[in-house]
């Protein structure tokens, strides 16, 4: 059930009730039951209730207990799984039942992965990259007036924080709320560029691994996974030192920052990098004449650092 937009008090309740109720469901200690109309929309699973709808309407006495409090065991495994590459989502979508849908609609911060599932869907909602990127800069400056502040929803904090930190990871218990941050990657000599989601990686090593898989291996092996799955650890791959981060390799991983300068990847803390990177480029070090001083400098630093 979609959390309704606060369109005033015409129904004094069924819409605004839902979001309050969500809070109630989350914190069972919360004793401040709102004065509500009798009809509450309970978020019960339609178990054995036939295929119709997916929701049950529960009549609830005023101030009384809500018909059903969703707990972890009620929620089926996440439909739009955070981690899943498309392979698992295609099988899950075919076995999708209405019951799964109801679980999908809960969106309180504590409801495990279900709440945040859709924000990690690739390419959804279908807004073009240039819009998202230009929005990203603007979202930071916007005052969050309107709906959020009126509703006093504790979820506000989460969404406000999310708005203002576009490049960062948000971890709410098991729920991960984050936006994608796709940047373009080109490699010298290859006309076809790729895009990589920086927010799906937590470190330079993981990013370098993804890029190596994308560009430096001609025939992907069966066990290769996409960049988004890397965050869940393919640890065996991580032990091998990255070619792209190693100064002595044939390749240098560079990025263009906000000021338009090309820099070597790896010299600044990851978070700082993510907040300033505009695009990436894998250069052949033989051609990296402009970066030679940087490479040399790093070479010296790497040598002098204990491993």
């Amino acid at each position, binding site marked *: 059930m979609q959390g309704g*937009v606060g369109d005033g008090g015409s129904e004094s309740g069924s819409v605004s009730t839902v979001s309050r109720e969500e809070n109630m469901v989350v914190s069972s200690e919360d004793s401040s039951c709102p004065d509500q109309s009798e009809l509450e929309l309970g978020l019960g699973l339609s178990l054995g209730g036939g295929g119709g709808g997916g929701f049950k309407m529960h009549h609830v006495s005023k101030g009384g207990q809500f018909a059903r409090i969703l707990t972890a065991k009620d929620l089926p495994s996440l439909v739009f799984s955070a981690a899943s590459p498309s392979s698992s989502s295609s099988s899950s979508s075919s076995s999708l039942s209405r019951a799964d849908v109801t679980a999908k609609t809960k969106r309180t911060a504590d409801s495990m992965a279900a709440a945040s599932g859709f924000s990690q869907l690739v390419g959804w909602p279908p807004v073009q990259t240039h819009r998202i990127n230009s929005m990203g800069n603007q979202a930071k400056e916007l005052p969050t007036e309107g709906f*959020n502040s009126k509703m006093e929803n504790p979820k506000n904090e989460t969404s406000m924080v999310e708005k203002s930190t576009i490049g960062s990871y948000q971890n709410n218990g098991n729920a991960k709320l984050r936006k994608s941050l796709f940047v373009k990657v080109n490699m010298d000599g290859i006309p076809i560029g790729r895009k990589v989601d920086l927010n799906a990686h937590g470190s330079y090593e993981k990013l370098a691994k993804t890029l190596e898989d994308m560009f430096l291996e001609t025939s992907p092996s069966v066990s290769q996974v996409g960049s988004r799955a890397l965050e869940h650890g393919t640890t065996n791959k991580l032990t091998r030192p990255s070619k792209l981060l190693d100064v002595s390799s044939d390749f240098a991983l560079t990025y263009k920052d906000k000021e338009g300068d090309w820099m070597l990847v790896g010299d600044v803390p990851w978070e700082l990098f993510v907040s300033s990177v505009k695009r990436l480029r894998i250069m052949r070090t033989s051609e990296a004449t402009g970066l030679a001083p940087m490479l040399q400098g790093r070479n010296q630093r790497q040598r002098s650092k204990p491993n």
Partner: protein
Amino acid sequence: MVCKSWYEIERWCRRKVFVGNCYAVSPKMVIRRFPEFRSIELKGKPHFADFNLIRLKRMVVTDESLELIAKSFKNFKVLVLSSCEGFSTDGLAVIAASCKNLKELDLRDCEVDDLSAHWLSHFPETYTSLVSLNISCLGSDEASFSALERLVGRCTNLKTLQLNRAVPLDKIANILRHAPQLVEFGTGTYTADVRPDVYSDLAGVFSSCKELKSLSGFWDVVPDYLPAIYPVCSKLTSLNLSYATIQSPDLIKLVSHCPNLQRLLVLDYIEDSGLEVLASSCKDLQELRVFPSDPFGAEPNVSLTEQGLVAVSLGCPKLQSVLYFCRRMSNEALVTIARNRPNFTRFRLCIIEPKTADYLTLEPLDVGFGAIVQYCKDLKRLSLSGLLTDRVFEYIGTYAKKLEMLSVAFAGDSDLGLHHVLSGCESLRKLEIRDCPFGDKALLANAAKLETMRSLWMSSCAVSFAACKLLGQKMPRLNVEVIDERGPPDSRPENCPVDKLYIYRSIAGPRFDMPPFVWTMDEDSGLRL
């Protein structure tokens, strides 16, 4: 082919060529068929590719290609690149330097490697033929303002100028002063410290643009500068505020000044209240697009609901094209909208949360969309969202006889849904599907239909590799491409669903420029790397 002589006449007279899918035909074929063409528009990636669903480049236009175009077609007049990538400002520099007769350069939604803003200076000082320039997609790097001003100044026939975000507000006045004849103008960033002299300069120069009908740009808008465009508002027919992050009251003020508006693109900051004002002020409105300001937020951040769409459908008798992002919908609203506005030709609704049910009845939105296709008999394009069963596809197959493009996501229960569409929609050209439980049966049963369409895209569905191979073998006029980052599809069981599938008809045979994660299902072996 009507008759041979007509074919020949057409062939020699054709000046404009549009290639909707660059792999459907080879360049050689185009040149052979239309040796005298003067303008070419090439489209590459399938629509759903815009949304990071693939990392596959469908339209690589390299700098070398641009150079080839520039050197080979000395009299080249129009170049429109739509959602293309692979080229840089170096390639543009060659075009600028060589195409003495270039009238139109339109890079809409392209991704251009911004190496240097100085490509603009490559237009020779003697060059004056520019009529239309759209560089709004170029990056936020320093633009070469003086070169731009000089170019605009000497091209007295310039009618369309769409700048990129890098052009600051205080430069716009100078540019517009050189081109008061502009019909379409796209600003750069519309923000600056509020200064009365800058403001009055800007307002003055807008007043002198008597032909201006269309405005766009408006990145980073500062509301105080908006009234500068009021002098032109009464004549505006098109307004793109989709990058303007201003709130409803400012939007309402602006929209109220534009009674002749036919086309509006705006963010959902306009809210239901703003759309109600739009409905009462802009009776000529034909196209409306409302984009989400916070697409990834879990909770609504603005008060924009189905009510806004109902209001415009009621108040705007000429409304025929809608793209609407919102967070709730009801069958009742959709039926009302359909009844109000049977003249819709494009109806694209995106309820942000997948599988959202009717918020009033908690039912699927089958009936609502069913009403849309039933009442809107000329509907050419439809995008679905929300909770939908196979039933909606039954409605679509039954009623949407003029439908040419359908976009589906997170919908349906079984192959029956897909079957309804493929067997019922007689005019269908493009079908794009993601995350639906559609498998082999419907696809194979309607294989012949695919040859009558431009393309079919399916991602995260349930089509097996075996079915893809079979299609590739049996349908030689189709290119069946499997896109899968997990590695070669034959490294998994045959009945394993493929990640992404792109099928398109082609007279050019399979292509050979595929990246390593794309496989063509060939008629020979069934697998070609």
